[in-house]
């Protein structure tokens, strides 16, 4: 009886060592490469926005294609902080010795997508100007193989259970033409 139990334990350990361990290792490497891919794609996307001064539908679609080529699904957030110099101008025009403060207001993902990827409409570029800021954040929404394997041993609960994410932001360098 004792020998039987030991044999069962040995078989179980062997299965874990010979199959699960390499699988987990490779799944982790896949996640690392996917993370690098989305970091590179996000950096390139943000860079093209700040250089061109606009978010073009072509750049956006190309960005989506690149990140989904990792085999995962992602939630993409685009936030634009638009520089408003009018309050500063009005202050200076009232009191000539004072430099007025400029303000920023936020444009969210849905407002940007209404222009570059509208439902039923013609996509067009979302123009930005020098001094605006753009931020792109992405998080994966599916469970990767590595997450699934880890869930055998422990489960992460909560609202954010993503394993891959990145955020890039930059100031727009030239007003889009």
């Amino acid at each position, binding site marked *: 009886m004792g020998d039987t139990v030991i*044999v069962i334990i*040995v*078989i179980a*350990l*062997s299965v874990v*060592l*010979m199959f699960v*361990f*390499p699988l987990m*290792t490779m799944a*982790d*490497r896949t996640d*690392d*490469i996917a*993370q*690098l891919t989305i*970091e*590179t794609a996000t*950096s390139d996307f943000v*860079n093209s926005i*700040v*250089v061109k001064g*606009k978010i073009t539908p072509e750049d956006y679609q190309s960005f989506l294609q690149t990140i989904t080529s990792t085999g995962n699904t992602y939630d993409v957030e685009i936030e634009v902080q*638009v*520089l*408003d*110099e*009018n309050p500063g*101008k*009005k202050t*200076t*025009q009232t009191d*000539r*010795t*004072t*430099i007025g403060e400029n303000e920023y207001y936020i*444009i969210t993902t849905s407002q940007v997508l209404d*222009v570059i990827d509208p439902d039923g409409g013609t996509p*067009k*570029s*979302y*123009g*930005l*100007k*020098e001094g605006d800021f753009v931020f792109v954040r992405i998080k994966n929404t599916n469970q990767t193989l590595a997450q699934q394997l880890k869930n055998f041993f422990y489960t992460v609960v909560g609202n954010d259970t993503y394993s891959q994410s990145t955020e890039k932001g*930059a*100031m727009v*360098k*030239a*007003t*889009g*033409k």
Partner: protein
Amino acid sequence: MKLQGLAVMFIIIILPISMVLASYTETRVETLRLQISYDEKLDSATADAISAFQINTYNGDESIFANYKMEDIQAAVSTFYNSMRTNFSMGGYNNRDIEDFVPALVFIMYDGYYIYSPYQNTWDEETINETKRFVQNGGMASYDGGTTTDYNRESLYGLKPYVYYSCRYVNGSADVVITYALDNYVSIKGKIGNEVVDKSGYLLSDVQLNNNIITYRGNAITAENYRETVIVDGQIKNLPCRKINGTKYYYDESTGQTFHFFNNQKTVDTLLTFDVVQNSNAVEYYQQAIELKNYINSHPDLKNLSTRNAVDEDGNSLENEFGNYDIFEELFDGTIEDEDSLFNSHRLDVIKYSVERNLSVAITNYNNYSTATTNFQMPQLKDYEWDQISNNISMISFLQGLPIGAKIYNGYSIVSNNKNAEYVSEDSIYILTSDNVYHNVKDSDLYDGSENISGAVGYYNINFERKSAYDTSGIRNYYYPVENATGCYNSIVNRRDVSDDKISDMLNGTGELARVYYTALGRERYGQYRASNNTNYTTSIGDDVTENDLKINATVTYNDIQSEATVTLTITGDGADTAIISYDNVPGLERINDTTYRCTQNGQYTFRVQSADGTQNVSRTVNINAIYSNEDFVKYNVKPGDYIRYEVPSNAISILSNESGYENTQVINTQNYSSGSWQVLYNDTEHGYGLQIISTRDVTNGNGLYLRGQSGYNNSVSILNTIASQFVNSTYAEWGRGLGLNPANPVDTPNNAELLWGGDSGCKDYDSNYTQDLTQLRSYGLLRDSTDVWLASRNYDAQFENGEGYHRWSVRAFSISGTEEDKMIFEQNYNDSNQEKTERAGVRPVIKLRDNIRIVSGDGTISNPYVISM
């Protein structure tokens, strides 16, 4: 074998493999992360540099001139390296540590580009000998801080000479060089047969002149009353304004003065040849385009110029580079201004060819300068990047050779800027409507009736940026050239409603909006600075009814000193060869040949052309209004910094030991500076300075003047005055003085200073007379020399505490870097332990020219200085 044994063996095999794989993957991941990080750092530094350039260009009056532009670019380069050092956490290092990995920086300007990269500094014999003597006499060590005496062939980082976007073409009798720009402006120079060509302007297809009305794309272009806000004499005013050759001229209605700003100083203009109130820049812009179009049309070898006619500097064909199509075909049959025109395509090819060639050489040569072990090579730029470079003011930076784990970093960054004073693009014009809101010209609200276009004016976008000046109380005030205007929230602040369509297509048929836009575009483009701008000297071209009719065109060229003008007539059309030319024989007009006339007086001159069969008669009246009397020319055109050819008399003077305090007698021979150059220091009758000139460099041939002790201190001013008097050529000059004395009253301080502990020091008192001269030298870039230079001004420093103290007596100088310096040569201590010290510096005398001096030739540049006469 038992299962557990198999499992152990499996682990022994697999574990190392997976560990190695994991490590390799991690290394690659880190390498790519580092590459992304370096890309971001390089982008950030390049963006900082181009922002610095942008701020300097539209805040400085002088940015339009070539030397000030180079200073702005040097500032941008410094900003780039500061930003790189900060980004790479190398704040304590100097630029040289970063420069090892930056093979080149390229600044794409409007009609050419600069490359910033290392070069070998090659000095001539005179400079080498002078510097060796200077160092041997105790001067500053060499640039690298060592003691080498080999100063020649030193590696320095700096801006290479400006390279234009030029290409040479040979077609039949035409051998011309065409210089392109970021828009459709061209400059054509060369020869067509025996005719020398020097034409420039914008290439516009759909511009017409009928019955003295100019139309562009069907929109009539007229003169306008254009106004801008400016702070002048401490007050903010909205004045008529006109920009000519990069300078804004204002007319102050309250004082009747016309003025402009130079170096933030108001300069009143009295002899302008154009009207500031009626701004006809837009009219002249399109007129110039018509002239250029007609000129090209009247010269078949130029009109039929093709890309296959392009040749390099050795005359070899560049057909393989540029393809085979006519360059100017669309000027007469198409729309040459369009982005997709063949002309634009060729323009991009020429820019790319030039930049790529010179940049490749600069980067490859960098291997000879850098201490990094990398082999530097020019990376391949993509087509859309060349498109970006060729259509915007841009900066390209390269960073190579940094190790990033698994490979060596090789990256570049291209950052463009489209809000600067360099280039007026089509998108740079904003439309200000009557509600004081300015819009992008592609704002949909301007086309759907939401906005009232009546009373709208087009402005250059940089005129909505904040500027500053001082009010009458000396407090800095801020203002906008276009006051009380705010940006539209649909197209300026938030640009989501800006259309993607072409501007020309959107404006087609819009009437008033198109007129406002094209007038503003023409006004701003015509006012831009051009180095070879001869627009001030062309007359109007008059009627131009049909292409084949007999026509007479006239161009006016003034000589350097504007004492006379040459009128050149061009007769074109049917019967031009046999046409009869006549003119009014009036005083001041002299015929040289049938088509060339000399005018020596201001006035209107009429020329008539009649066809041989008498069926056609055309005339042209030329208005000459920029001939100056020599007195007026000297008074209003000779400026500080201009070069003057001045003949130095042959004199020698010995400065004895008891005068200078130095152990040896010093001999100053004026012939050591016989071929040296002189520049205007003052031309100011208002303050009584008159016309005063200064030697460009030290006149002692590198030997310098030594001063020592109390004698040297007390006699410093009289010695410098005596030396200056040796350079007075009594034919042209009244007197000479030491630099640093009061320009209107160059006398020495008479008084002796008292010591802190009572008693006469025996030393002359200090003064602050030097400030006027030093300020003048700084303002007009006259400071630079290879040695410190004495100022005829004294200073002292004293301390007294607990009954003990000292007086230290100094003679002022300015150093190589342009900063003021006190050279202490005598110290008096409370206990009478006086000390004497020897100091050395150069001498730059100031000469006052006679009030009735005449300028007979020259344009004041270093290569063509003014020649004076009595």
